[in-house]
């Protein structure tokens, strides 16, 4: 199973790998949702939908159905100072 943004837990980060181009609107690309950029899941609403994200410094929320179309690689770092 592919790991997507929808598989992130609150506070987790990932790097965007691949986007299902045909189903994801251009608007998301323009918000910075592009391969190679970092994504952080900041908050989830009840029933895990919608998801509140920080992608490439932009803060926005998208529905779960869209998040499932964006494949990522989880970053399992414990960022120590």
């Amino acid at each position: 199973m592919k790991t997507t943004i929808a598989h992130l837990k609150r506070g987790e980060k990932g790097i965007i790998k691949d986007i299902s181009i045909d189903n994801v609107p251009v608007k998301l690309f323009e918000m910075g949702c592009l391969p190679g950029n970092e994504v952080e899941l900041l908050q989830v609403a009840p029933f895990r939908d919608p998801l509140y994200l920080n992608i490439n410094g932009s803060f926005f929320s998208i529905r779960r159905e869209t998040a499932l179309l964006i494949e990522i690689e989880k970053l399992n770092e414990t960022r120590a100072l």
Partner: protein
Amino acid sequence: MSKQIKVALIGNPNTGKTSVFNQLTGLNQKVGNYPGITVEKKEGVCKLPRGIKAHILDLPGTYSLNATSLDENVVIELLLNKSHKDFPDVAVVISDVENLKRNLLLFTQIKDLKIPAILAINMADRMDRKGISLDIELLEKKLNTKIALVSSRKGTGIDTIKELILEYRKLPTEPCVNASVIDKDYFENLQNAFPDQELYKLWLVITQDVNFVQLNRHTIPDTSSFNTKSRSELKRLQQKEAICRYQFINGTLKEGYKVDAGAAKGLRASLDRVLTHKVWGYVIFFAILLLIFQTIFNWSQYPMDYIDELFASFSEWAKATLPAGVFTNLISEGLIPGIGGIVIFIPQIAFLFLFISLLEESGYMSRVVFLMDKGMRRFGLSGKSVVPLISGTACAIPAVMATRNIENWKERLITILVTPFMTCSARLPVYLIIIALVIPDKRFMGLNYQGLMLMALYLIGFITAVGSAYLLHKVMKTRTKSFFMVEMPNYKVPLLKNVALTVLEKTKSFVFGAGKIILAISIILWFLASNGPSDKYANAEEIVTEKHRGQDISEEDLNTEIASYQLENSYIGIIGKAIEPAIQPLGYDWKIGIALVSSFAAREVFVGTLATIYSVGSEEESTIKNRMAAEINPVTGGKLFNLASGVSLLLFYAFAMQCMSTLAIVKRETNSWKWPMAQLILMSGFAYIVALIAYQVLK
């Protein structure tokens, strides 16, 4: 007058574009609609140095030149069409210093269209706190433009914008990104096919149809013959374009934009932790709603009572001062109360929009949308439908106006259509008097029946609204693809000037938009109620006086009986009698018929009309109630207001579209008579059927 410089303000949403617009134009602005669509068009005049003026057009906020909504499409249609009368001499691109990276994407696109562009970097007052430093000179060089560092909050940098607008001819127009590198062959062929057109413009025209179908763009070159790529190939290229632009932007900002990472996330993270919390988020939202509606009810009561009295005394004054005659009656009984009927809504509209714009400006509204979206989506509504629906319990008119924030047209239309089902405050007087008449004042397990009935009516209103939203969602075809993406902006202290201008603008748009229709209908209703075709109406005074000759009757009683006799023989009375066969199965007589027709002006008129028709001198509730309780149904011989007819009436008022003001505002907001007429027919038809069933079952 010399020619004005045409300026277009363009920018992402939440960059403070409207604040800059307000700073530039002050009160010299007007808000209208783009022809044929309900997108707001804001324009104004700005005085520049040396006596030159600029015409400023505040375009809808957009993230890029790829439209996904009607609002955004306005921007593209204008920028792609050089012969458009509003085509700008210069574009001022507003950006937010904290989101500069994303904001520059739109800027590079506008540069590619070779439109002279000034970059205004707004929210400069936040730079210190966020540890941001800019190398303006370097950025100007890299971006091929002039930059104004602005704080619309503090009012700084506005003069710099003005100076730059004045000197717009000196702005470089070379693009900063060459988009054609994403597929050289394709772009070469495209240029060869349309040698007279600008390349980036052609590309935008081709890709617009991928994003946003069904548009008539007759003013732009027809590229439909040039379809050498499939939809998904084009989309792949669009992604490449975005990557290409971001590469350029990242390279530029690397040198010219520094953030001191020591300045942490701060306010956003800690506020979000509470405000979007699974439990506390909702608790706080409902507490805020409660506060808002309590204050709307309480605060607007005083100005509304005052307006009511003011217009009543003004009307009396007009009647006493002007020479008696038809014309004076028109003014004192038709025109003045008609205007009063519009003005009375102003307090509620102003208060609601005061709160809504505070929530919007602070950034909190996006969090509400985030919390409510999932729940509302099931019914074809959006997270943004929550506020209009709940506002509907005060009054449907400001509520319908509040749907403007919903970008998706289908969700917005559904919200507009179902909002009038919510129990508005004008239904309350009708409910109270009928409940008092027909529902026993007894308790069951400590609960008062009358209170339960009132609560049930509120619940019925809400359930019908949501249920019909669900049906509409299933029935209506979507024209545009629905896509949900809500930006979560930074929390900000609202700017008072912006809030005040929003309130002013919404109030104006109600008074001058819907007001005309309300005034026209109320004058028609007045005419119908105060004129009659036969001698009976004209000679009402003599007929009634003759009837009581020799009897001991006070002048006051005589006058109220004359009024009642006049109403019975007026056009409206005749209509009431004419519809009697239709409303008899619902348990009503012609007197209720008259009240139904006249309360179309506003539901609460029902009580006043019954007072006139039963010739009760005062509008004191208990007096009317006693009189109504004594009324006999001519068909059954029993009481006219019993449980069956009472419940039937309550349900009729719960569902019927008995409010011309709502129809007028829906007409204004949807820009067609189609939707208000559909509401009128469907809601009132549904009300009729439900009331019929209720009466026949309970009889």
